């Protein structure tokens, strides 16, 4: 495992450089916006990565809450399976309710990913480890969400003529960022034993904002452009290829950063436990 990290780091650095070259040189120039449209190759993958990390945070937080009691853990497992089956069946049963441009297959994929990721986390992480995973994904997610909130206005200024507008997509993204920043502030400054539980509950409610951000451009009239994938929009296949390469590069980068942050948190907790043990043992050694 120790060797895997630098090897993956080098591969990711290579992939990020290749993705940057693709975004700046290879991708075709968009006709109306010109070169500034290339911000898209950093803005959109960063948003997708942030959403994925917040989704993982949501799953880890739920597991941290339910796994404290074996009974509720079992119930939660069945609820997740039932939700997965419902998500797979619903788009075919209620086809007319789907927003325009959303394919039933993408809803089914989301359902399968939800169930798969839930049980993968369940298998790979213990109760305490889910708490560490939740903290890690929230922190890295906030970093990617910050990138989205910074690159967005830098793209909007030359294209819309304004840095910011209080429309649903932009405002809900800002609210999402604020929720997870408050989550991190809570984790950082609260020393109560109940902090992980409170933070997990906050994360579960915070995650409800993710679908609102994602679907806001379907349900509300916004300044933000319509989605180019799965939303009825279209994209040049060469642009799509570059977009996906950049997303893959950012996903690898996020995975490495999460790995690093997770190891830091694990070591920190081990040190704290040892320090607490040592403090307990100290008076005895003084008596001796």
């Amino acid at each position, binding site marked *: 495992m120790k060797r895997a990290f630098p090897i993956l780091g080098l591969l990711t650095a290579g992939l990020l450089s290749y993705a940057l070259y693709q975004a700046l040189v290879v991708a075709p120039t968009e006709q109306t916006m010109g070169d500034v449209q290339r911000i898209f190759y950093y803005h959109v993958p960063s948003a997708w990565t942030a959403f994925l990390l917040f989704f993982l945070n949501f799953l880890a937080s739920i597991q941290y809450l339910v796994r404290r009691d074996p009974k509720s853990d079992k119930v939660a497992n069945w609820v997740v399976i039932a939700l997965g089956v419902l998500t797979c069946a619903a788009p075919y049963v209620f086809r007319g309710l789907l927003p325009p441009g959303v394919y039933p297959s993408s809803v089914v994929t989301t359902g399968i990913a939800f169930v798969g990721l839930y049980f993968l986390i369940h298998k790979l992480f213990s109760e305490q480890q889910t708490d560490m995973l939740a903290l890690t994904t929230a922190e890295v997610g906030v970093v990617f969400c910050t990138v989205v909130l910074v690159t967005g206005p830098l793209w909007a200024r030359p294209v819309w003529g304004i840095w910011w507008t209080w429309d649903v997509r932009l405002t809900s993204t800002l609210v999402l960022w604020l929720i997870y920043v408050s989550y991190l502030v809570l984790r950082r400054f609260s020393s109560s034993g109940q902090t992980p539980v409170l933070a997990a509950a906050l994360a579960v409610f915070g995650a409800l904002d993710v679908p609102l951000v994602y679907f806001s451009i379907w349900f509300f009239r916004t300044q933000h452009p319509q989605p180019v994938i799965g939303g009825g929009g279209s994209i040049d296949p060469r642009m799509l290829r570059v977009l996906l390469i950049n997303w893959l590069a950012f996903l690898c980068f996020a995975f490495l950063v999460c790995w690093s942050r997770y190891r830091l948190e694990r070591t920190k907790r081990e040190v704290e436990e*040892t320090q607490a043990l*040592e403090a307990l043992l100290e008076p005895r050694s003084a008596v001796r």
Partner: protein
Amino acid sequence: MTFLYAAYAATWTIHIVYLFTLARRYSRLKKEVDELSKKI
């Protein structure tokens, strides 16, 4: 082009600043581990 370069530079600045804070936390933790191992 200025906005494009600004966006790319801002992205990497944010990531590098975060990696820097991670590295600082690592070195602080390493110090604590060293002190603890000396005590034990």
